[in-house]
């Protein structure tokens, strides 16, 4: 909010009325011009670039992204389970170009906050008035003994950044014998898509149920509880025999020795705190931190980037905004929806700041659907507001929550439909 002091500072006489009206309205205003460079073309960066152009078409927006195509992590578990093609989670950048975003495929190597310049691998330099950095996640290799980026590229895929990794893990499942064991190891600490490992277990179990019913999935968990736990477990009971001797899914909590301490890619074993497990397919989802460029640019504090949650401007460097998985917006989960919404809040704030206006009061929301089985979807949905005194994103009291435990089969069927509807709309909102 505008503090009274800032308000006075900002305003002079009759101008004050204009400032107030601007805050209350917030739709298109006179153009600010200037240059914004967006680093990273995932849900956060792509949405920010598009919505910045929508908020103020006079701003020159350049998006720098290494890859010509983006594979969404969301719905990639359906690719693993064989219900969806990789093609259907693949998106290009022509939609952004249609919005007047200049898209450059290159890798950012340096961000200099003092001179406000961004340098790339190919030797280009981009000057900016404001930069938006949305690099997503990077993995903390070495947290698990014997684990490495090389191992993930060869035999133990993470499939936590979609694309070739998704294809590799899917192929391993196809090649696995009936009666095989799949291990999914969840990461310690904050990670992208908190319900994701459990949706993955569900959809792999669905594949096994259809094609290799003597097999099973073992979730080796670094924690003792997880997102939508009650709903997942109820779904697993209903579809996958969870809790019986023939269950397609086993969950080993950290307290039961689930935290994976080591992996052997040749012997195909994972070492838990208690047991060593031999598996046919091993999917280790490594612990995570902000994407590399965030560290190189000095935007991090610990694993993530501290930001002003009203504008997503970095607490480390003025003029650079960080959003999505890489930011420390702990109140919201690291999800595609969160990144999409944060990008819009950020884009509007950047448009305001470029024009010398005080940014408007933010609103955020997150809805995460998980597909438990073909006709069985569940969700968590939370509306968030901003606590300026604490610089925190907080859930609105008395609202939000997960699918009710007593939801009817028809309601769960509709949630599966809506999960797919959400996917179509959010990807169109980001890339279309």
């Amino acid at each position, binding site marked *: 909010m505008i503090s009274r002091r800032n308000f006075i500072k900002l305003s002079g006489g009759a101008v004050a009325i204009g400032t107030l009206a601007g805050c209350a309205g917030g739709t298109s205003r006179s153009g600010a011009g200037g240059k914004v460079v967006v680093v990273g073309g995932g849900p956060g960066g792509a949405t920010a670039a598009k919505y910045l152009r929508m908020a103020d078409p006079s701003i020159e927006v350049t998006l720098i992204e290494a890859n010509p195509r983006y594979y969404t992590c969301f719905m990639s578990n359906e690719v693993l389970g064989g219900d969806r093609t990789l093609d259907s989670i693949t998106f290009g950048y022509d939609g952004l170009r249609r919005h007047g975003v200049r898209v450059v495929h290159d890798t950012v190597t340096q961000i200099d906050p003092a001179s406000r310049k961004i340098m790339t691998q190919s030797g280009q330099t981009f000057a900016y008035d404001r930069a938006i950095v949305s690099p997503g996640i990077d993995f903390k290799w070495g947290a698990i003994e014997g684990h490495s980026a090389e191992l993930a590229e060869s035999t133990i895929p993470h499939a936590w950044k979609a694309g070739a990794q998704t294809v590799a893990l899917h192929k391993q499942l196809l090649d696995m014998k009936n009666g095989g064991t799949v291990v999914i190891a969840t990461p310690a600490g904050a990670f992208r898509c908190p319900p994701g490992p459990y949706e993955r277990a569900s959809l792999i179990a669905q594949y096994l149920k259809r094609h290799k019913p003597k097999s099973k999935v073992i979730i080796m968990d670094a924690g003792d509880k997880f997102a939508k736990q009650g709903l997942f477990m109820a779904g697993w009971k209903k579809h996958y025999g969870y809790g019986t001797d023939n269950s397609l899914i086993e969950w080993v909590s950290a307290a039961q020795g689930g935290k994976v301490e080591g992996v052997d890619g040749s012997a195909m074993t994972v070492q838990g705190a208690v047991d060593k497990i031999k598996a046919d397919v091993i999917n280790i989802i490594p612990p995570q931190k902000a994407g590399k460029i965030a560290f190189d640019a000095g935007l991090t504090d610990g694993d993530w980037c501290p930001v002003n949650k009203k504008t997503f401007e970095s607490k480390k460097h003025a003029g650079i905004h960080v959003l999505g998985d890489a930011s420390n917006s702990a109140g919201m989960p690291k999800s595609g929806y969160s990144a999409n919404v944060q990008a819009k809040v950020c884009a509007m704030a950047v448009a305001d700041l470029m024009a010398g206006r005080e940014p*408007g009061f933010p609103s955020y929301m997150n809805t995460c659907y998980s597909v438990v089985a073909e006709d069985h979807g569940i969700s968590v949905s939370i509306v968030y507001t901003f606590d300026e005194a604490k610089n925190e994103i907080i859930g609105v009291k008395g*609202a939000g929550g997960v699918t009710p435990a007593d939801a009817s089969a028809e309601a769960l069927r509709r949630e599966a439909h809506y999960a797919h509807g*959400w996917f179509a709309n959010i990807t169109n909102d980001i890339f279309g």
Partner: protein
Amino acid sequence: MGSITLFKKMVFAGGLALSGAAWAATPSAVMLANTCAACHGTGGSSVAQIPSLAGAPAEYFVESMKAFKSGARKATVMDRVAKGYSDEEIALMGDYFAQQQQIPMKQSFDQAKAGQGKRLHDKFCEKCHEDGGRKPDQGGILAGQSMTYLTFSMADFLSGERTMDKDMKKKVDEMFKSNDKSSVDALIHFYGSQQ
């Protein structure tokens, strides 16, 4: 320090009749509406199963949100979401979406059913859902809306999960006197065909 005087006049005395906190803590309409787009489509025009909000009368939006909030209208997700917004915020969103131009959803439909649906629509629905369901006098926009969503909605109306208003109930009953249950499907194909 003319600005202080002005500030005091505006905030503490007349005009705005709001405390500083209350005025600042209300996001703009576009800020609020942007958060809906990931599910309901950019600008409220959906390309999939979740209903479009664009172009719907503000009264319908507000009434729906309040019904979700109170639990009067059952939902999968929206009951949880609607509780997150004040009446003022709901009104802002309602006005915003009412001003957006709906982009009809591209979807496949059965031509013959759509033709039958058009005849039924003209006879039983057009009076309230005017212009082929494009410009509603009451209710939301039906033309170009997701057929999956319309199927769910009609199932709820017919099972009594969702309450039909008096006029709708009368017309639906009238339709069923001379038509079987497949007439609902025909209507849905007609609305889906409006692209």
